[in-house]
């Protein structure tokens, strides 16, 4: 019998310089492994590939803005998920909640676009998006409270209902046309007004404001306190006199409503149309964002930025070098792998047989 070669030992809270160091090493290692992959598999010069990747986001001012636009979509949904996740209510229905909010917006634009003045129209669009998203969040919460259904499955299934609704509605709205196209092309009714030259700048502003509000809500408000207690233990919540059902339902309405609002931003501020791809998988990617950030809205901004940077970079590499999309995805996947893997070395250290400490 021999002493094991490696033993894993949990660290007590790592000091901040250590955390930074571990992450820096992770990124460097990721770039080295990526370089090997690029050199040996594609035969390209790793450094020029990295420059192209960097240019995917930072190539020019417009690209920075586009990256920001995509980042706030992720961030906005992440923010919506934060209160639900903090309550340990695994809402994986953001995709559908965003879509149904977007659909409500689109319907109001199409059928009330010419009836109301702009301010009233926007109030209607926002309200309908929030209500639609809120209802999409509320339904699973009611079922869980009344009959103890599993919220993960339930919210997931709600996605498909939202997708089918959207699909049916767009078919109806487009009539004889081959595709829906931009809504209200002539009147531009319900199009988000341009701020600093772009309509989607409003999205950026709104989401960053939401980020601050959500941080305050979760950290300092009584509601936030209740959410934390319910998430930690329902028994503790009962003991403290918290009405668990009420908190669960209220929180899911909020979570769904913010998703709905993001749907509104996407339809009015970004696409000016609706399709089953409006949420575009962001509702699922945002789950990763919320989790990695441990439900802290500010960290979410960083994670969303990183993910956007990687996907923009991958797309740029693929188009510049006429590479297969998958090859570019491997590159960004390796980076993500190292960054996530570094968490392990922040929480644990390895002890080798001869008492060599590493980490």
């Amino acid at each position: 019998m021999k002493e094991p070669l490696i033993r894993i030992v949990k660290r007590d809270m790592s000091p901040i310089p250590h955390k930074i160091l571990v992450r820096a090493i992770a990124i460097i290692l990721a770039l080295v492994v990526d370089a090997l992959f690029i050199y040996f598999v594609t035969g390209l010069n790793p450094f020029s590939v990295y420059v192209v990747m960097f240019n995917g986001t930072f190539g020019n001012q417009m690209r920075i803005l586009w990256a920001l636009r995509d980042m706030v979509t992720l961030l906005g949904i992440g923010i919506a998920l934060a209160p639900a996740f903090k309550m340990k209510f695994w809402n994986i229905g953001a995709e559908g909640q965003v879509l149904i909010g977007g659909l409500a917006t689109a319907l109001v634009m199409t059928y009330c676009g010419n009836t109301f003045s702009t301010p009233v129209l926007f109030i209607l669009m926002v309200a309908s998006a929030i209500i639609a998203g809120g209802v999409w969040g509320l339904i699973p919460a009611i079922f869980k409270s009344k009959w103890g259904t599993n919220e993960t499955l339930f919210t997931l299934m709600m996605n498909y209902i939202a997708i089918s609704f959207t699909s049916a509605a767009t078919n109806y709205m487009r009539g004889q046309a081959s595709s829906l196209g931009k809504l209200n092309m002539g009147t531009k009714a319900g199009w988000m007004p341009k701020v600093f030259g772009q309509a989607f700048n409003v999205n950026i502003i709104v989401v960053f404001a939401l980020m601050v509000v959500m941080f305050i809500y979760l950290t300092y408000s009584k509601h936030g306190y209740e959410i934390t207690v319910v998430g930690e233990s329902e028994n503790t919540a009962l003991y403290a006199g918290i009405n668990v059902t009420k908190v669960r339902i209220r929180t899911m309405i909020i979570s769904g409503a913010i998703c709905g609002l993001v749907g509104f931003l996407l339809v009015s501020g970004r696409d000016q149309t609706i399709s089953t791809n409006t949420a575009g998988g962001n509702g699922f990617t945002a789950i990763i964002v919320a989790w990695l950030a441990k439900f802290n809205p500010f960290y979410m901004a960083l994670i969303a930025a990183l993910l956007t940077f990687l996907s923009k970079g991958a797309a740029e590499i693929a188009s510049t070098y006429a590479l297969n999309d998958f090859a570019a995805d491997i590159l960004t996947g390796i980076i993500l792998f190292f960054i996530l893997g570094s968490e392990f070395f922040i929480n644990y250290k390895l002890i080798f047989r001869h008492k060599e400490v590493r980490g």
Partner: protein
Amino acid sequence: MGNAIEIKNVTKTFGKTIANKNVTLNIHEGEILSLLGENGSGKTTLMNMLSGIYFPDSGAIFVGGKQVEIRSPKDAYELGIGMVHQHFKLVDVFNAVENIALGFDTKRFGSFNLKRVKARAEEICKKYGFDLNMDQKVYEMSVSQKQTLEIVKVLYRGADFLILDEPTAVLTPQETEKLFAVIRNMKSDGKSVIIITHKLKEVLEISDRVAILRKGEFVGDIATKDATESSLTEMMMGEKVELNIERSLPVNTMTRIEINNLSVTDREGVKILDNISFKIKSGEILGIAGISGNGQKELLESIAGLQKTKPGSSIKFFAGNEGEQEMQLIGMTPRMIRDAGIHLAFVPEDRLGMGLVGSMGMDGNMMLKTYDSGRSFVTDRKLPRIQAERIRKRLGVVTPSLSTPVSRLSGGNVQKVLVGRELASNPTVLMTAYAVRGLDINTSYTIYKLLNEEKQKGVAVVYVGEELDVLLELCDRIVVLCGGKVSGILDARNTTKEEVGLLMTSYRGEVQEQ
């Protein structure tokens, strides 16, 4: 008697916590050794390294004079070391034989054959005097039967060294006697038994030798015949400790809570509490005795508004003098009880799962019951901090900071935070479930003192406890629960441990309050 197991300079750390520091300890053949120490002194960690759960950071272990590396419980069994853990590791839906056969090693015992396993297990039972039905399912077994099964399981695997982690914690005095009898049988058969414990009386009764750990370090060992309760305490604590509970006579007692025909069933409809009636009075400490799981939890939770009760149950609260200002607590939620102005403090058994929020610091936990006071949308963070600081000082809570998540604190400190908060709420009725479980002797006595102070202030104190010695010394009256019924209401000053123990295991007809 040779040194069968030698532990040399063994150190084990978890993060910054040093669980064992340079421990050197010998275990002889055929002896009963008590490993004595406060909670958190590293007794279980040390034994876990013998049984293959943990691996030491440094140091060496010798068995029979040869250095060994024990990397798994299987390695431990091959060396003849077996451990019965505090939390039993049995499969509920299997019967006794099937549990014994679990992890059967065909290399050592030949081909798998349940009948043969049963025959050998029965042989072991006969040899040492165990009382075990081999065909009984684990979920039908009492705690003491489960423990017996665990010990037989370990013996079956050929253990010559048995480590028992807090074996008497869950047993009645009668069951403890039975356990001690078989331990003595094992000893006379040449086996070594190591008992991890912090109960001094049992140490003196059963063991040949006592080894003492304090804060992870080996303090020394002493032959039991040369030891006394106070000398052992002194070694354990490193200082002299007064082990006295000052019990005053109750004055001015008034009925605060009157429980009538309280019944509770679990989800399957099994009766947990069956028609219980008794009174809780101000200015006295009412002890609740019973084997754990006999309805104590449901009883306290019913009073606190956390438990669904059967129709016909009644829990009346009297705010004023004897029998005045009556309020029915059945049907009220904790919030309604609080809003009705009833100061009901409750230290539940499940500290982190009910009494506290593990991810929050002391400060956040202080406001668990008061967070929603005031009209503001945000919570008041100042007052809880002040209160947390006060409790930290008063009870000596060891924590890096007030905002360190309480789940990172040691069990004793967690309990101090909880008890501290409940006492600070200025209660009329104070209910505690196993208030000193996991606390060191000093802190336990601090808690007893605090409870006595509350009693003298006129608070109605309910103390659910597991150590009968303490119940007899601390309480004024004792309600004994057995199988969800009240099997006796005793005057704590005029009863014996044996009487309480007997009532804990046998129900003999309806008991009426005087």
